């Protein structure tokens, strides 16, 4: 009987050992090289190592950073032509000031709102924005993405509270952010600069010089429908402006925009380009005057000349 029990014991031990050895070897055998990428990515960061740090070891110490620094701060960043990002922090002092001014209950009876101003071309004084839109945010939120869907415009945002009376009270105001352009500029007049401070304006013919491949590539990258510009047409690209992306707040759809110029038109557009160039098709480029050789090297300050005068129509 005793022998039998011993035999069982030994058998169990053997099985356990076998299982242990097998399982400890297994992960090593299983280790495969990292899978090659399937998507068409660029090779930018391939130097990053392919293996995670060991799980067994305690993770190295990482200090924690404060969620807030006890200051009044609001920053606005343009992420791309269509989206803005804001973060903010309100100090306790600010909150107390609000309460002492509007009553001890006012904080709780009011609700936080982001008021986003379109201040394109405006010297913003707080009440002279082109348009604005209010975005309700959570009481706990301290950052927000805003879809504006409008390239090449300037924005500023206030964090404020709307009182039960409907009055908006500004607590913080951000810096100004400008959404990047998403298409070719429609400003065709040209200004040229000599490195040596000598300036010579050239003729103001314009032609967007782009091979179709180039535009295809841009359109692929931007996920936009891009209509190739014919070499002869200096007309700006008609581009769908609003972004199809998922939005936390789709502002363009929220605002009943009063007198907003068509988004396709450049706000700063100055029609100086000689209209006859549009008619003539592709104009031959004209070079610099012969013998216009300038000293090489670099300027302390490259001088800039005034805008070229409108070209006179030649008798054709």
């Amino acid at each position, binding site marked *: 009987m005793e022998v039998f029990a011993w035999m069982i014991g030994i058998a169990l031990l053997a099985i356990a050992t076998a299982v242990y050895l097998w399982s400890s070897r297994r992960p090593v055998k299983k280790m495969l090289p990292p899978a090659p990428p399937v998507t068409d990515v660029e090779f930018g960061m391939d130097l990053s*190592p392919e293996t995670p740090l060991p799980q067994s070891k305690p993770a190295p110490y990482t200090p924690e950073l404060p969620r807030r620094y006890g200051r009044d701060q609001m920053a606005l960043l343009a992420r791309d032509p269509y989206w803005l990002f804001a*973060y903010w922090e309100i100090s306790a002092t600010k909150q107390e000031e609000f309460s002492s001014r509007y009553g001890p209950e006012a904080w709780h009876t009011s609700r936080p709102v982001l008021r986003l101003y379109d201040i394109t071309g405006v010297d913003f004084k707080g009440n002279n924005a082109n348009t604005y839109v209010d975005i309700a945010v959570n009481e706990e939120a301290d950052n927000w993405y805003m879809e504006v869907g409008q390239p090449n415009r300037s924005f500023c945002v206030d964090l404020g509270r709307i009182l039960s009376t409907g009055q908006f009270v500004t607590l913080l105001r951000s810096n100004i952010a400008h959404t990047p352009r*998403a298409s070719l500029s429609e400003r065709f007049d040209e200004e040229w600069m000599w490195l040596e401070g000598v300036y010579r304006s050239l003729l103001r013919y314009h032609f967007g010089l782009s091979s179709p491949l180039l535009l295809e590539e841009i359109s692929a990258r931007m996920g936009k429908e891009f209509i190739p510009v014919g070499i002869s047409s200096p007309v700006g690209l008609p581009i769908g402006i609003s972004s199809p992306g998922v939005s936390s707040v789709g502002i363009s759809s929220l605002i009943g925009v009063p007198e907003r110029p068509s988004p396709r038109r450049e706000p700063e557009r100055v029609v100086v380009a000689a209209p006859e160039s549009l008619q003539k098709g592709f104009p031959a480029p004209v070079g610099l005057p012969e013998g216009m050789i300038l000293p090489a090297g670099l300027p302390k300050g490259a001088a800039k000349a005034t805008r070229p005068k409108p070209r006179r129509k030649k008798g054709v």
Partner: protein
Amino acid sequence: MAKGYLALVLHAHLPFVRHPEHQYSLEEKWLYEAVLECYIPLIWVFENLVNDSVPFRLTLSLSPPLLTMFADGFLQQRCRNYLNKLIELADKEVHRTNGGPFYGPARMYQDRLRRTQNTMNHYNWNLIEAFKKFKEAGRLEIITCAATHGYLPLLFVNPAAVKVQIAAAVDLYRKFFGHNPPGMWLPECAYAPGIDLYLKENGIRFFFLDSHGVLFASHRPRFGIYAPVFCPTGVAAFGRDIESSKQVWSAKEGYPGDFDYREYYRDIGFDEDFNYVRDYIHPDGIRVNTGLKYFRITGRTNHKEPYVPEWATQKAATHAGNFMFNREHQIRYLNHFMDRPPLLVAPYDAELFGHWWFEGPQWLEFLIRKTVYDQDIVELVTPSDYLRLHPCNQVVTPCASSWGNKGYHEVWLCGSNDWVYRHLHWGADRMVELAQRFPGSEGMLRRALNQAARELLLAQSSDWPFIMATGTMVDYAVRRFKTHMSNFKGIYQQVTECRLEDDWVADLESRHNIFPDIDYRVYAEA
């Protein structure tokens, strides 16, 4: 006379990875791999060309963290140990593979690693000496990059942060090369109007943008990306040529995916018996790449055939010829529309060449030789060369942009990394405050304030948000970011509360020893 120009630009950068506190650091290995697989092979290319008196011109951007790490004695020593270990493995491999299909590539690695050792010894283990030599030979135009590769448009909320990213980089360049850098590679080609003002203040004459940064400029550039433009400040912006980028960069259509080229994803660190490679992988037994890779890409499946170096070399020559042919074609076409020779700007990450695309440096050498000797349509130039030849350029305001995914700032400002800017902006504001509060300082206080500037700069590196966004090694990026911010905050508090812990500051100085000559007061001048 040439009908057009080609400007080849290589941007070399790694984040500052120096970890004397660890015996082994996976992140330091980024540096050693890049040195052995990219920078040394590129140096061989330049040596070959210079020895053969090939009159080439190429632009190379060396980021300040990279320059600092090249010159750092501690990292040089560790790099030497890394190389020695690898030579030991390569020697073993030559015996192991003898008579088999991998003997050829094994011998190749053995030769290359020994040659690497000779090259490193020749330059006293400091690669700056090598690049400087090619610069002085008139072949390389070496430019700089922002101090810690900070993503400038997102730091621009406080212009002082941008200003110092530029100024500290210029100072470091001057220290190593003895004169001001002619141009700057903006980290990630990230630009916003106004940044050029600080470039101008620091004597920078040009920078690079992705194609749409120039194309979408206002007013519309007459020559698109085929001629540089001047910002209103007079600093020149050069736009990336899309066609030449795609042929090299694209993982799907680009040259590097050719079936005869070396397969990156098969490495003996993963393929061979654990006990055999144990001494050459992570000390905790984690398998890592050794750099010894014996297969060619072969095809789209997992089936791989042995690498044949001669075939790959042949392909690199063919691809260089194809690239050349396409540029000639492109330039002939563009000549119809321009009153001056078109310029094609082809910028690449230097780390692409040799590490991922093993044959990249060979391709580059073939391309340069072919351009110089086999045709007369295209001439190699650097931005400074171009501006000397064509000093009159159109004035426009370039478009805010980057060369990251989707072309703007989203990679560096998204759900996984947007939290960093709250801290970075606070840090820049506090640094300016410190600089204004202490217009003069002595001894330990001065050292602490300078170290605060270093910690802030290190936290500003665009590599941290980038890694957070890509999702691999996120812990490391978060740790580095938080560590530097926390060090900055610690110094700020100790300084303002007059309770400096001298030993702690001294310890930080010794470990985070980038920009040894920085003067924190530069933040007050912005």
